[in-house]
């Protein structure tokens, strides 16, 4: 029998969709941090669905300020705890989506990491602006259809690959940067715990399939997350002080087609002329990941 799951501090009864990735991510994150935690949560689905005033799903102290300032607010929380002599044993953790982390909030997060605050930041990456209705972000993968990157007569959808945000955080000199996935709760819990125990700014990038935004049934969230890892489109690794120290091996990678076919956002690749060539390009990304991160 496996060990019982750690206690979490996100109450059920929030307003997330069935199979919501943010709810799973927040739950696992808090399993990793424990109760002595202050959460800083920039604007997004997670904030909206967990705190319809006067209700709150958060059993730990939580603050939402704005979309683009999570890193700075977390910096201020950490600095205040230090100044007031209350930092000992308290973990400061930021949690935001790909938009608030990789796009609009990157300046603030960059500043927080450069300054070396003792915080952990978790990016819950569902690869588009889901809260506003599935618009493209810099986390949206190549060829994905979103409401602002639709396929059309002369387009296969999003024309650019995902921004490599973990590499950017490594470049800040972060002592601990890890990728994880909500499809692997124990991995995520373990990495969050490790990140919060390391002194300094640590970064976790959690891949998080969104049933509503990606177009799959809400019962398949975990399955979809695992498929991303099993096709090597989402490599899971740890980097400590700039060095790759751990990689989740994928013995027999599945073809990316299996992952793409299961989601409406890639449906056009299977119906449009030239779609096969596009799928080959996506397979090349997976192959590059296998090679670069040594996934096999």
């Amino acid at each position, binding site marked *: 029998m496996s060990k019982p799951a750690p206690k979490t501090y996100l109450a059920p009864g929030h307003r997330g969709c069935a199979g919501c990735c943010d709810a799973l991510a927040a739950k696992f994150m808090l399993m990793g941090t424990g109760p002595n935690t202050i959460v800083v949560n920039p604007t997004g689905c997670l904030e909206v669905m967990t705190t319809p*005033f006067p209700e709150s799903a958060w059993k730990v102290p939580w603050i939402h300020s704005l979309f683009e300032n999570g890193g700075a607010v977390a910096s*201020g*929380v950490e600095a205040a705890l230090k100044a007031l002599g209350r930092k000992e044993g308290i973990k400061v953790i930021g949690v935001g989506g790909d938009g608030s982390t990789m796009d609009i909030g990157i*300046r603030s997060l960059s500043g927080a990491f450069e300054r070396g605050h003792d915080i952990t930041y978790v990016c819950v990456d569902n690869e588009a602006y889901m809260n506003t209705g599935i618009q493209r972000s810099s986390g949206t993968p190549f060829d994905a259809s979103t409401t602002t990157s639709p396929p059309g007569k002369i387009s296969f959808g999003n024309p650019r690959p995902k921004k490599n945000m973990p590499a950017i955080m490594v470049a800040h000199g972060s002592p601990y940067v890890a990728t994880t996935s909500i499809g692997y709760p124990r991995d995520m819990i373990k990495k969050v715990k490790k990140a919060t125990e390391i002194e300094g700014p640590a970064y976790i990038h959690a891949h998080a399939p969104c049933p509503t935004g990606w177009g799959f049934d809400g019962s398949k969230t975990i399955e979809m997350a695992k498929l991303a890892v099993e096709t090597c489109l989402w490599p899971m690794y740890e980097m400590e002080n700039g060095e790759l120290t751990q990689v989740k091996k994928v013995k027999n990678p599945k073809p990316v087609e299996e992952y793409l076919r299961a989601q409406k956002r890639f449906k056009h690749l299977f119906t449009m002329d030239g779609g096969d060539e596009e799928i080959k390009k996506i397979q090349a990304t997976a192959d590059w990941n296998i090679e670069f991160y040594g996934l096999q």
Partner: protein
Amino acid sequence: MTVNVADKDKMVVVEGSYAVAHAAKVCRPNVISAYPITPQTHIVEDLSQFIADGEIPNCEYINVESEFSAISALVGSSAVGARSYSATTSQGLLLMHEVLFNASGMRLPIIMTVANRAVGAPINIWNDHQDSISQRDTGWLQLHAEDPQESADMLPQIFKVAEDKDVLLPGMACMDGFILSHVYEPVVLLEQDLTDEFLPAYDPEYVLDPANPMSFGAFAAPDTYEEFRFMQEKAMQAALPKIEAAAKEFGEIYGRFHGGLIDEYLTDDAEVIVMSMGSILGTVKDVVDEYRARGEKIGVLKVRSFRPFPKEQIRKAIKDAAAVVVLDKNISIGLNEGALFTETKSCMYNSRCDIPIIGYTIGHGGRDVPRESVAKIIEEAKKVASSGITVESQFLDVKEELL
């Protein structure tokens, strides 16, 4: 200003920015965030030296990467329960705009010094009030100082008002950029013991603390949002008497009084009253002294609190004048009026008093306003007193040859 005669021995000649940084220090801040922008920078430089010398106990100084983060970091620190301070101006204050609403909505008593400066384009680093006036509706207390001493003395006062449990609003202590921030003149540096007596430690009821988890900044739907706005307005109204009380108590402890919500200079019998905010008041008072020496009844109304706006006090101060002229270092483009003028007219409209009020927008981008210009304005107001308004609001000294 009421001056304590004993102050003369305590005065030292320092830069206005130093006096303010020193005042911030003795207020015992716990978190200071800093980002350079002219003409505010000397304040945070002086504070960084205090930090480097270990002169501010229990304080973290954060060199942020933008003004947006300067104020955002203080949202976090204030929510934890730290007394939080920053200073900015102009483009920096505009960059903070979104966060200003947020800090007020969350009822976080952050204090900022604003070294008022023009905003671009065209880029201009000199003084006017367009920056802070543009933040009028953000839910921040906004006080304006007349000289470096008041700029320093304002800090413990505004901290005290902002942190009052009936108020809990952030506040801007405004001082004119360069004119006050960079001038060297004799001031009394605020005494630590007096400041400790005047300003108790910040002891908020609601903080981020794992021992008692609370959610800050929740999502409010139409069924609850309006009440948050109502409560902010109520807090602003509660601040009105607290600003008066803080100024009075400050006077009792330190021996200096710069006015409460407003300050009146020779207004009692004045036929013409000149109203304004900030350092221009010094020049205006000098000119008014000349008029008085000639037996002409001119008075000056200094508005110290722009938010909350002291309607009652202004009504009472100007109601018996024959004409009022309002000088604004800002303009609402498209209305051709400065904000103090518009709001003064507005607060008189439903009163039973119907005195003519005219406005001048002056000193844009640091344009000098010499005594002769002030005299010209007073002459125009005198004409209004006798024969009514011809031009309601105008620029003071547009150079036709440049148009």
